[in-house]
C-alpha cells in the first residue's frame, strides 16, 4: 500500500514535469513572438538614420524608377512593416554579408519611402548550414520559424545545395517567394519546370546556375588558349558531388574542341575526391605525374583551402583555373597562408572588386562605408534580391506571395552583376555581356585580399603563372 501511494506520488510528479516541459515550448514560442519584431525594427531604423547621406548616390541609379512610383514620404511609425526574411548561416561570413547586403538595400529603399507606403524590415534566422555537420533539419526549423514566427513575406538566402533543395520542398506549403543567392544547382530550377504550380516560388538570383558557370568557364578556357597557346594539358579535379558530376561531361566535351587535351589517368576522365577531404597528396602527385599544365578545379566546399595549400607546398607545375567557392571569400588568402596566389577562379562579374556599372559602384561605396569591409559574393545577391522584391511588390500592389510570382518573373533590372532576368526555370539568365544578362568573370589571386580580373577581355589583365611552372 505504502509503496503504491509513493508510486502514485511519483507518477504525479512526473506528470507535472511533462506539463512543465510542454509549457516551456509555449513559453519559448510566445517569447519569440514578442522579442524578434522590435529588435530588428530598431536596428533597421538606426541604420536608416545613419544612411540619410546615401540618398543622393542612390537616386542617381536605376532604382530611381522605383522611387518615383512609390510614395515619397512615409513615417514608419504605426505602419505595419514588410518583413524580408534572411535565411542563412548567420555566424558565417557568407551569412553575415548576405544580411548586410540586404540591410543596405532595405535602408536605401526605406529612405525613399519604402514599398507600398510601408517600410521594409529584415527578419533573419540562422540555418547554420556553413557547418557541414549540421543536419538539414536545423535549416528547415529556421525556415519554419522565419515564416510562422517572424512572418517573413519573402525569403532571401540559401547556401548549401542540400539545405536549399530541402527548403525548396517546403515552398508549396509556405507559398512565399524564395530568392536563392548561394546555391547554383541546376536541379533547383528543374523542379520549377517539372512542377511549376508547386515550385514557382523559387528563384535563383545569384550566382548564375552551374550550367552557365560551366559555359562561362569554357569560354574563358577558349580565351586562355588564345593568349597562352602552349598550355593545353588539362587535369580535371572535382569534388565527388552531384553538381560536378553534371558539369564534368560538358567540360570533357568542349575542352578538346578548344584545343586542350584532358590528361586524367582515371577511367572517368576526371579525378573525383571526397567532399571535405583533408589530404590531397594523392591528387597532387597524380597531377604531377600526368604532366598536366592546368588544373581544372571544381570545388564547392572548404576542402579547397587544404587543396590549394598542398598544391603550393608541393609546387605542382600546373595552374588551378576553375570554380572554387571557398576561394571567393577575401579571407581565403589568409586561410591558405598565401598559397592562393596564382589560383584563378570564376566569380560574378560584380564581385571582381572593380564595379561594372554605377549601381555596382554605389553598392560598393555604401557597403564599405557602413560596414567598413568589402562585400563578398553573397552580399550583392541579397542586395539585388531586395530590389527585385521591392519592384515586384510595387508593381503588384500587394505583398501576397503567390500574387508576386508573375511580377518577379517579369523582373528586368540592372544590378551589380549586370542585367537580371529570369528564364523558365526561374534561374537568372546568363550572358557574357552584362548588359544582356548576369555576367561572369575570372579573377586571379595576386595578393592579400585582392584578386585581379583576367577575363572577360574587356576587363582583363594578363595572367601570371607560378614561378615553378
Amino acid at each position, binding site marked *: 500500500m505504502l509503496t*503504491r501511494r509513493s*508510486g*502514485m506520488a*511519483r*507518477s504525479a510528479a*512526473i*506528470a507535472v*514535469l*511533462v*506539463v512543465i*516541459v*510542454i509549457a*516551456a*515550448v*509555449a513559453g*519559448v*514560442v510566445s517569447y*519569440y513572438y514578442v522579442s524578434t519584431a522590435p529588435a530588428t525594427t530598431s536596428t533597421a531604423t538606426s541604420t536608416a538614420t545613419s544612411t540619410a547621406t546615401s540618398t543622393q548616390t542612390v537616386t542617381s541609379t536605376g532604382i530611381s524608377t522605383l522611387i518615383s512610383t512609390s510614395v515619397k514620404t512615409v513615417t514608419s511609425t504605426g505602419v505595419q512593416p514588410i518583413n524580408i526574411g534572411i535565411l542563412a548561416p548567420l*555566424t558565417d561570413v557568407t551569412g553575415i554579408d548576405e544580411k548586410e547586403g540586404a540591410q543596405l538595400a532595405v535602408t536605401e529603399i526605406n529612405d525613399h519611402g519604402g514599398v507600398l507606403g510601408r517600410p521594409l524590415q529584415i527578419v533573419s*534566422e*540562422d540555418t*547554420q548550414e556553413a*557547418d557541414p*555537420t*549540421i*543536419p*538539414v*533539419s*536545423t535549416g*528547415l*526549423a*529556421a525556415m*519554419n*520559424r522565419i515564416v*510562422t*514566427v517572424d512572418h517573413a513575406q519573402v525569403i532571401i538566402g540559401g547556401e*548549401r*545545395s*542540400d539545405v536549399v*533543395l*530541402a527548403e*525548396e*520542398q*517546403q515552398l*508549396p*506549403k509556405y507559398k512565399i517567394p524564395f530568392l536563392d543567392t548561394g546555391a547554383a*544547382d541546376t*536541379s533547383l530550377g528543374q*523542379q520549377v519546370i517539372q*512542377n511549376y504550380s508547386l515550385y514557382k516560388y523559387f528563384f535563383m538570383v545569384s550566382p548564375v546556375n552551374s550550367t552557365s558557370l560551366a559555359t562561362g568557364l569554357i569560354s574563358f578556357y577558349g580565351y586562355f588558349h588564345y593568349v597562352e597557346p602552349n598550355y593545353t594539358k588539362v587535369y580535371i579535379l572535382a569534388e*565527388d*558531388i*552531384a*553538381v560536378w*558530376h553534371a558539369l564534368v561531361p560538358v567540360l570533357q566535351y568542349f575542352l578538346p574542341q578548344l584545343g586542350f587535351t584532358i590528361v586524367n589517368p582515371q577511367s572517368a576522365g576526371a579525378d573525383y575526391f*571526397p*567532399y571535405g577531404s583533408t589530404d590531397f597528396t594523392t591528387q597532387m602527385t597524380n597531377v604531377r605525374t600526368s604532366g598536366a599544365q592546368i588544373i581544372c578545379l571544381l570545388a564547392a566546399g572548404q576542402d579547397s583551402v587544404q587543396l590549394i595549400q598542398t598544391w603550393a607546398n608541393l609546387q605542382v607545375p600546373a595552374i588551378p583555373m576553375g570554380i572554387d567557392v571557398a576561394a571567393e571569400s577575401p579571407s581565403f588568402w589568409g586561410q591558405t597562408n598565401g598559397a592562393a596566389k596564382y589560383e584563378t577562379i570564376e566569380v560574378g562579374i560584380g564581385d571582381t572588386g572593380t564595379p561594372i556599372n554605377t549601381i555596382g559602384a554605389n553598392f560598393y561605396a555604401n557597403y564599405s562605408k557602413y560596414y567598413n569591409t568589402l562585400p563578398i559574393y553573397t552580399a550583392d545577391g541579397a542586395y539585388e534580391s531586395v530590389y527585385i522584391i521591392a519592384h515586384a511588390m510595387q508593381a503588384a500592389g500587394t505583398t501576397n506571395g503567390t500574387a508576386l510570382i508573375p511580377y518577379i518573373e517579369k523582373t528586368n533590372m540592372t544590378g551589380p552583376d549586370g542585367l537580371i532576368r529570369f528564364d523558365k526555370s526561374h534561374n537568372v539568365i546568363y550572358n557574357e555581356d552584362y548588359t544582356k544578362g548576369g555576367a561572369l568573370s575570372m579573377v586571379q589571386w595576386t595578393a592579400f585580399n585582392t584578386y585581379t580580373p583576367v577575363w572577360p577581355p574587356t576587363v582583363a589583365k594578363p595572367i601570371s603563372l607560378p614561378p615553378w611552372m
Partner: protein
Amino acid sequence: MARLSRLLVIGVVIGLTLVLFPVVYSNDFALTIMTFANTLAIVAVSWDFFTGLTGRFNFGQALFFGVGSYAAGFMNLNLKYGPMLTIPLAGAVAIVIGVAFGYPTLRLKGPYFALATLIFPLIAGDLTFSLSSVFGGEHGLYGLATISDSYVVQYYGSLLLMLATVIVLLYLASSRLGLALESIRDDEKAASATGMNVTNYKLVAYIISAFFTGMAGAYQAQLFKFVGPDTFSSNISFEVIAMTIVGGIATIVGPVLGAYLLVIVLDGLGVSSDISVLTYGVLLMVIVLAFPGGLLGRLKTNLRGMRIRRLVGGKPAAT
C-alpha cells in the same frame, strides 16, 4: 486505478498532454518543433531498447535512421509507393541492414562492438556520395510525397508513431524478452548458463531497434519531402544518446522526455548550433557524473514491477 502500473499512469498522462497540445496551444512553429521531437524520440527510445536493455553500446543509431530515410525516399521516387506504405517498408529494410551488420558484430566481446558501430554510419554516409547515381550525392532524394502539409496532421502522425513505438517497446521490455536482455546486460556468461542463446537475443533486440528507427527516418523523409546524407550524421547518433541519458537509460519512457527537453533546447530556442550542441554535451557529462540513473532513472523499478506482474501475476511476498 491503483491496480494500474505506475508506468501506465505516467504514459497516459504524457499521452493526454501531447494529444491535447495542439488543441490547447495551436502554433505552427511549436507544432513543427514537437514533430521533430516526436521523430527523434522514436530514435531515442529504440536506442534505449537495445543499448539500455542489453548494455551493448551502439554509437551508430544514425545508420538505421539514414537507411530508413533513403529506403523510403527511394521507394517513393522509383516505385511510387505512398508514405503510408514506405514508412513500414523502410522499417523492414532497416531490419535487413540490422541483420547484415548485427549478426557478425554482435558476437564481438567487450568494446569491439561499440567501436564498430561508430564506423558503419560513416561508411554509409560516404557511400551516398560515391554511389551518387543511386543516392543523389549531396542532392539526396527530393520531391518526395508527403502525408500532409498540415502541421497538425504531421504532429499527430509523428505522435501516433511515437506512442506506438513506446507502447510496443514497453510491452517487449517488460516481457520475457526484456528479462532475457537485461540478464545479458548484467552478466553475459551467467545468461548463457541459463540456457539462452545470447547472440540471438542481442540480434533480436538490435533489429527491433533498427525497425522503429528506420520508420522514424522514413517519417522524417516524408515530412521534409527530402532525404540527404545528413541523416547518417553522427550528430544524430550522439543526440539520441544524450536524450536517453538525460531521460534515464533502460527506462523506455525516459528518452521521450529527454528528446523533448533537448529538441526544445536545440531547435526550439534556435540558439547557435555551437551553443546548443555544447549544451547537450555538458548535460550529458553532468548527468553521467552526477545522476547515473538519469533524471528519471527511478522509472526502471516500475518497468521491473510491471514485468513481474506480467510474468508471475502480482508481486509475491517474501518466503
